[in-house]
């Protein structure tokens, strides 16, 4: 096979991986701070995708513009969820949290099913079928926009955590929970804020993902699993790790699909996950617990 094919596929894998990485970043942020694994992550993203699809259908607003309001909507959703339902579960055992979030996931996915039916839906932007040609490489326009937006959102989030007082306070909570209580941080509110931010990441990722792929009400679990694979590969709780994991998984799947049969490509993502867990149990960029 000519090299250009590999190049094409790899570039596509990187760009898609960035969007997946952004989605996984949400999961990572939530787990890193709140220590709750969001088993409803994929379903939250499905909600974002449907908001984008409906808004596009009604107002013909481009998902790239919708990214901000959709992220805001998901932020509010995540904040409310943490403040109301999840905060009392922080100290409960993992299986209890798991049940809570699985119940939520079931409710969300099936509510979407009732409203939208089982058929796949997509947005048809003006550039839905565009691609750019650079030498031998043809790149999907929507993927470029989505990948770029994923980078922008991640950088913004990174800046928020490094530069703002609120961001530092959230990092402080993740760093030392007792310490946060000692200095008088309102930990429950910061947790809600964190869950909101994680949800906003998912919202942004979802509104970009509709540029690349269709949505059905039942795609959630697949994305939740993908997010798990990515964050654990990259390092749960590490922000650059999530993006790196996303790109790594995206490229691996793409190249594996090219070399072997595409139907088995996600097996290679799991293979990478297993290898990473064995040799760096905290992920590529994850830190060992103090």
């Amino acid at each position: 096979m000519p090299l250009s094919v590999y190049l094409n596929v790899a570039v596509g894998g990187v760009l898609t991986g960035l969007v997946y990485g952004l989605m996984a970043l949400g999961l990572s942020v939530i787990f890193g701070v709140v220590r709750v694994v969001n088993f409803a992550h994929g379903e939250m993203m499905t909600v974002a995708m449907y908001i984008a699809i409906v808004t596009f259908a009604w107002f013909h607003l481009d998902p790239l513009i919708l990214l901000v309001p959709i992220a805001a909507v998901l932020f509010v959703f995540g904040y409310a969820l943490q403040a109301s339902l999840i905060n009392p579960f922080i100290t409960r055992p993992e299986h209890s949290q798991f049940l809570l979030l699985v119940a939520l996931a079931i409710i969300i996915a099936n509510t979407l099913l009732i409203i939208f039916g089982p058929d796949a839906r997509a947005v048809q932007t003006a550039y839905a079928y565009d691609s750019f040609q650079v030498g031998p490489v043809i790149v999907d326009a929507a993927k470029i926009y989505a990948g770029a937006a994923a980078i922008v959102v991640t950088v913004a989030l990174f800046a928020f955590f490094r530069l703002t007082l609120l961001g530092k306070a959230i990092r402080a909570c993740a760093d030392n929970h007792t310490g946060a209580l000692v200095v008088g941080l309102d930990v429950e509110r910061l947790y809600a804020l964190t869950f909101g931010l994680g949800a906003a990441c998912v919202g942004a990722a979802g509104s970009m993902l509709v540029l690349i792929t269709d949505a059905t009400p039942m795609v959630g679990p697949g994305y939740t699993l993908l997010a798990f694979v990515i964050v654990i590969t990259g390092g749960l709780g590490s922000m650059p790790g999530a993006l790196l994991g996303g790109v790594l998984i995206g490229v691996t799947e793409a190249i594996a699909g090219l070399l072997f049969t595409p139907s088995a490509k996600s097996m290679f993502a799991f293979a990478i996950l297993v290898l990473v867990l064995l040799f760096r149990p905290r992920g590529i960029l994850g830190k060992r617990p103090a």
Partner: protein
Amino acid sequence: MLRVENLDVFYGDVQALDGVSLDVEEGAIVAIVGANGAGKTTLIRALAGMQRELRGRIVFRGRDIAGWPSHRVCNLGLGQVAEGRQVFPTLTVAENLDIGAMLPRARALSARNRERVLAMFPVLAERSRQAAGTLSGGEQQMLAIARCLMGAPELIMFDEPSLGLAPKIALGMLETIRELNGDGLTCLLVEQNVALSLKLASRAYVLENGRVTLAGSGAELLADDRVRSAYLGL
């Protein structure tokens, strides 16, 4: 300034504090003395709003704060330098101080307080960009105190401030507490070095098995035979 009346704290079926009452007057240094497991840390956690299942009254600056969450307690001016220092290890020294000043009561005073604490602990200024986890034990204790001061407290509870420090640094730490008190800060001190803390204290309480068994001025307790034999090894 702080009055505790009949405080009971339970952990499940186990009673950790039993009818504890005590008074901390404004400007005083009050010491709590007791063996390990007597309930000293539980008392501090209860006062700080970190142990909220309790009975009794905790009146601070005229308000009953029993059962309040810690962030509201802190914002009323009741600060804490906790056991084990509890700094944020991956945040820089400067960021740790920023977090200390996040209380609504302290935000406006942030710049002035920062100058004050850095003048008090110059080493923190030198290390401001270093991650707190890389500091030595003594430096971390300074950071914990400085971070607490950033919150503009009126009363600070110290839980074992000299624990795990070299003797010379430990002495310096207690000296720092005396200085802070001299500047008008009220202090509640839990300290393993009983002799020194009683010397510093204007008033002291002995806590045994969750109960206050003895109270008096620091000098009185220093002279008390029971204290001398149980805690001073004399």
